[in-house]
């Protein structure tokens, strides 16, 4: 196995409506920026992996349809799709394919144009047609149940969750790629229209049009391409269940197990102290509290304290979602990959106004519809 790194990233300027471009043109925008970031041309790339969720755009076979924009003409080109985790699966796929040594310089693309269809209608098609689809499908219902169970178990409040929203939205102001770049107050979050109790409009991610491209290179090429590559330390994932009725509502078991596996592998004992930055796929406010408990950053029920104390704010001991996170930007097939790109750019020192100081270890996650989780850890040091 070869050590492998991220050597270049590109994102579109994400927006609620990119009707000015087709999906192909949107993809090309991100790919061009990633190639420019890595100072490579498409001739240097030896394979393309692309992903999104077919039903959002109603286009199957996106790897074929978008070929003039994705750079895959006459190269090995494949598609990966795993629902909400598509973007993080793409990052893990990029890691596996370059680490195997079968590919040296791989272009990985995640994208979505949510404006072209009905997001919830499309998400519904990912659920079992005979069972969950009729009663429990879509993005919000399962999360509302998870939040209610969490509040009841630990006495966590809607105000606690709102504090996590204002963190992400404040961070987004410094990210030129973010979709929602206006700060919000706790009062605004609490007064926002109710969607599914206790989730209100500002507690949940937007639907976004956007694309992200990331270039992976293995140890034979990484340092020649990038002065400070973001090395992949490891990746793990867990898929827990088939029907929503089978879910254990606390903790997020898939994330707890995936992170425990990776911490053990990398010898991480105190993630709060040992990791410098996290980009978490937290698609709604309460996830920013309870899922950091699953990640081992706080004891059960104590995630909110970490958020209120500012530990995860910009300038805090462990800044989380300096990009503005998923609550500010959510082009679904790109969302998990944006987390990887943000971690990589922070390690490379290319994060612009949102740059944190001295990032040596970063962690990103992905989350998918049926409560499954992906996790990747990145390092500034070449793995031994």
């Amino acid at each position, binding site marked *: 196995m070869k050590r492998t790194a991220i050597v270049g990233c590109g994102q579109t300027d994400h927006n609620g409506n990119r009707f000015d*471009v087709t999906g192909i*043109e949107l993809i090309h925008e991100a790919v061009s920026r990633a190639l420019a970031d890595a100072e490579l041309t498409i001739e240097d790339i030896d394979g393309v992996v692309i992903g999104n969720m077919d039903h959002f755009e*109603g286009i199957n076979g996106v790897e074929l349809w978008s070929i*003039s*924009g994705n*750079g895959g003409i006459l190269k090995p080109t494949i598609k990966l799709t795993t629902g909400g985790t598509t973007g993080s699966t793409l990052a893990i796929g990029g890691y596996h394919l370059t680490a195997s040594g079968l590919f040296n310089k791989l272009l990985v693309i995640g994208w979505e144009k949510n404006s072209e*269809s*009905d997001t919830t209608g499309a998400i519904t*098609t990912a659920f079992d*047609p005979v069972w969950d689809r009729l009663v429990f499908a879509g993005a919000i219902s399962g999360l509302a149940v998870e939040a209610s169970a969490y509040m009841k178990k630990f006495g966590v409040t809607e105000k606690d969750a709102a504090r996590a929203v204002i963190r992400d939205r404040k961070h987004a102001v410094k990210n030129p790629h973010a979709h929602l770049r206006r700060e919000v107050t706790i009062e605004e979050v609490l007064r926002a229209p109710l969607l599914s109790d206790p989730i209100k409009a500002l507690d949940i991610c937007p639907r976004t049009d956007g694309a992200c491209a990331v270039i992976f290179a293995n140890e034979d090429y990484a340092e020649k391409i990038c002065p400070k590559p973001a090395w992949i330390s490891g990746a793990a994932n867990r898929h827990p269940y088939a029907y929503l009725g089978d879910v254990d509502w606390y903790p997020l078991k898939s994330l707890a197990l995936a992170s425990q596996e990776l911490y053990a592998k990398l010898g991480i004992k105190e993630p709060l102290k040992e990791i410098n930055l996290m980009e978490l796929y937290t698609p709604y406010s309460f996830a920013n509290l309870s899922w950091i408990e699953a990640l081992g950053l706080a004891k059960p029920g104590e995630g909110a304290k970490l958020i209120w104390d500012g530990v995860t704010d910009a300038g805090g001991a462990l800044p989380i979602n300096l990009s503005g996170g998923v609550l500010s930007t959510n082009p679904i097939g790109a969302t998990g990959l944006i987390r990887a790109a943000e971690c990589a750019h922070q390690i490379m020192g290319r994060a612009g106004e949102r740059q944190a100081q001295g990032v040596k270890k970063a962690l990103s996650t992905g989350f998918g519809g049926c409560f499954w989780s992906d996790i990747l850890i990145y390092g500034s040091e070449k793995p031994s």
Partner: protein
Amino acid sequence: MNEILTHPSRIKVPYTWSAGEALSRFFKALRDEQKILGSRCLKCRKVYVPPKKTCGTCFVECSEWLEVGPSGTLVSFSQASYPSPAHRVLKPLFGLIRLEGSDTSFLHMLGETNLQSLKIGVKVLPVFAEKRTGSILDIAYFKVVS
């Protein structure tokens, strides 16, 4: 005997797709000027009709725009003999047309003709629709001129 039950349902999802930068310009030229536009790759110089924003092979912009045709050469043709709700006329004739100045072939319908009198290599001209809306049907069909 085991009885296996089925669960009938249906999926109905609305879509609105952007035509994007290149095709919007192409459709507007059809609608407003009755002109057919192509875009040229800045590297390999290939002219795409319908136009592309980027050349997939060279991965550079096709930012040089030009008018092609209106006359073209019939590269291939066929007739759909069986009726289909997708057809606008009964037994439509389809032609693959290489417009003058283009390096790609363009699929459209042929009119004012019949299967027996068509030949590969004949010259064709577009007949524009009277009511144009900014779609490929702003060209009603192509007719044979030689």
